[in-house]
């Protein structure tokens, strides 16, 4: 919405997984991992995506990269619909989107040297070989704050933060327009988290690519994002400019999330949790608004009708019946 032509446009993305049981492996249920998600990411923009574990954040990430096939909906990158691209075309377009995973230990092949890992995308796409490839990899190492002489080392010889830097270098190697970060710092020490986040911000300034930044840590998201989307049980419940969302959260779930951020002040009284209980099962999501089972302001209508994302104020969309019609007033 910040840009006339968004880099990434996801429309009504749905991903259902079949639950099979019995001898005949019949379909006995459906996991509604992602249940109709729409959003855009502008050029050079960072969209933060937060939500509890199991709310479908990672599935959205993987669906965008076509690592999982979406059940329905469409994904447009640079104005091109990549949802149904064939293998060969898709391979070409993978250059423009890359992913950084949460676990830096499992996302590097333990039997390859760091240099080979970072240089592999170049070989796959025939961009550089031999000495040229070595030079390019050394350059990438430099960009992410690793030394070129570490190229011969194996992943186990690096620390968690360094490994994540290798992952970033690998993602950079193809010069992507979009980098999806799937909780890239949640497996790292707090002291290292800041370094990696700052590196990501730095790289964005230098190269101008966009991030879809997935996390469950609000502080991290607040630091890096331009806009923030909040997910609950496979749907986006609120999406707004960062400052607006933090200052003026409209969805009860967002309000609860913000209230739950711990404050580093022992004198400050801990607030009573605004919600309790667990996230309902995505196999059998609640009717109407998925959040109605835990919402303080639940109304009869919430149990029947599903609210859709609507403009509540400028650049602030929310899916909640409480906000119905407020957009027109403002």
């Amino acid at each position: 919405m910040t840009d006339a032509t968004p880099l990434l446009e996801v429309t009504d993305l749905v991903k259902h997984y079949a639950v099979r049981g019995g001898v005949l492996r019949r379909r006995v249920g459906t996991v509604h991992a992602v249940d109709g998600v729409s959003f855009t990411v502008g050029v050079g923009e960072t969209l933060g995506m937060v939500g509890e574990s199991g709310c479908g954040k990672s599935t959205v990430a993987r669906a965008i990269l076509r690592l999982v096939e979406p059940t329905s909906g469409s994904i447009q990158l640079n104005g091109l619909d990549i949802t149904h691209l064939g293998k060969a075309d898709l391979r070409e377009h993978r250059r423009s989107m890359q992913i950084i995973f949460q676990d830096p230990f499992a996302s590097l092949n333990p039997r390859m040297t760091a240099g080979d890992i970072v240089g592999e995308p170049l070989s796959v796409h025939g961009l550089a070989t031999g000495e040229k490839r070595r030079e390019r990899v050394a350059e990438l190492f430099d960009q992410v704050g690793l030394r070129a002489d570490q190229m011969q080392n194996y992943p186990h010889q690096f620390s968690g933060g360094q490994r994540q830097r290798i992952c970033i270098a690998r993602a950079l190697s193809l010069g992507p327009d979009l980098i999806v970060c799937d909780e890239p710092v949640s497996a790292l020490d707090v002291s290292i988290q800041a370094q990696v986040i700052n590196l990501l911000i730095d790289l964005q300034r230098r190269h101008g690519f966009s991030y879809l930044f997935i996390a469950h840590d609000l502080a991290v998201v607040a630091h890096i994002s331009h806009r923030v989307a909040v997910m609950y049980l496979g749907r986006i419940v609120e999406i707004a400019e960062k400052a607006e969302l933090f200052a003026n959260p409209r969805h009860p779930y967002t309000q609860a999330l913000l209230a739950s951020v711990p404050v580093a002040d022992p004198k400050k009284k801990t607030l009573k949790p605004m919600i309790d209980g667990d996230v309902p099962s995505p196999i059998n999501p609640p009717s109407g608004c998925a959040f109605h089972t835990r919402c303080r302001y639940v109304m009869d209508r919430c149990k029947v009708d599903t609210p859709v994302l609507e403009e509540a104020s400028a650049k602030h969309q929310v899916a909640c019946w409480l906000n119905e019609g407020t957009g027109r007033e403002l």
Partner: protein
Amino acid sequence: MAVINYDNELRRAGAHSTHGWRKLTYLARRHMLGAIGLVIMVLFVLAALLADFIGRYDPLSVDSMQRLAPPSAQHWLGTDSFGRDVWSRIVHGARISLAVGVGSTLLGSSIGVIVGLASGYLSGWVDLVFQRITDILQALPLLVLALVMTAALGPSLPNVIIAIAIPLIPTVARVIRANTLALRELPFIEAAKSIGMSETRIALRHVLPNTLAPLIVLATAQLGSTILTEASLSFLGLGIPEPYPSWGRMLSESAAEYVRTAPWLVIFPGIAISLAVFGTNLFGDALRDILDPRQRG
């Protein structure tokens, strides 16, 4: 999947250096039995390679003056009913055992790896078909299958190798498939996909190298049993044809008739078979402990 970092393990265990000779002597001290197994295997390989030099006699030459001679300075392990030198027949027999053991293990493992990778990585109907064939093959004992194979193919060295290799395929394929299934879910495979690598290349570059450790362990463990199967086949008369010396046939030729009158004809080939199998098994066990501690038990 946890990947064992052996250098760290070594350091934690107090090794001062993790390179070269020191690493080797350290491992040898920690796995005494494995080192013994390795020595036996090396001796076995040397015997096979140098058979012409250390054999002293032509293993095929018949000497009617020296029939059933007991062990002596002239014939270290005695002679058989044709007057052939038992020592040189055993040393040359090592060649057959080695050729069959290594040949069939390599052949069986390579096919097993391809089947296992395809089955685990592609899944779907490919997996289903391969797994059902594997089930059928595994339902039959190794020896029975090998027997049927040689009976169908006719006894010759290549045929014996093929006959012993085929029953190995399912075992290897199962292990590789299980490993592949575990690896397939790891983020580095997804990362490889997202950089646009083809499935075949992912399977070969990323999956295969990470299944090598269990494969080496399995192949070494199978080496002993292939040697034993060859001996059994030859004992039953379906192994390597005359006149090439095979330990199994040396046993079967003499077991019934000469076990009382010329026991060296039975004892020495028997020792040779036991030692070779014992050595490979000891080494295989140590290798499993070193490369793959999770499979201990």
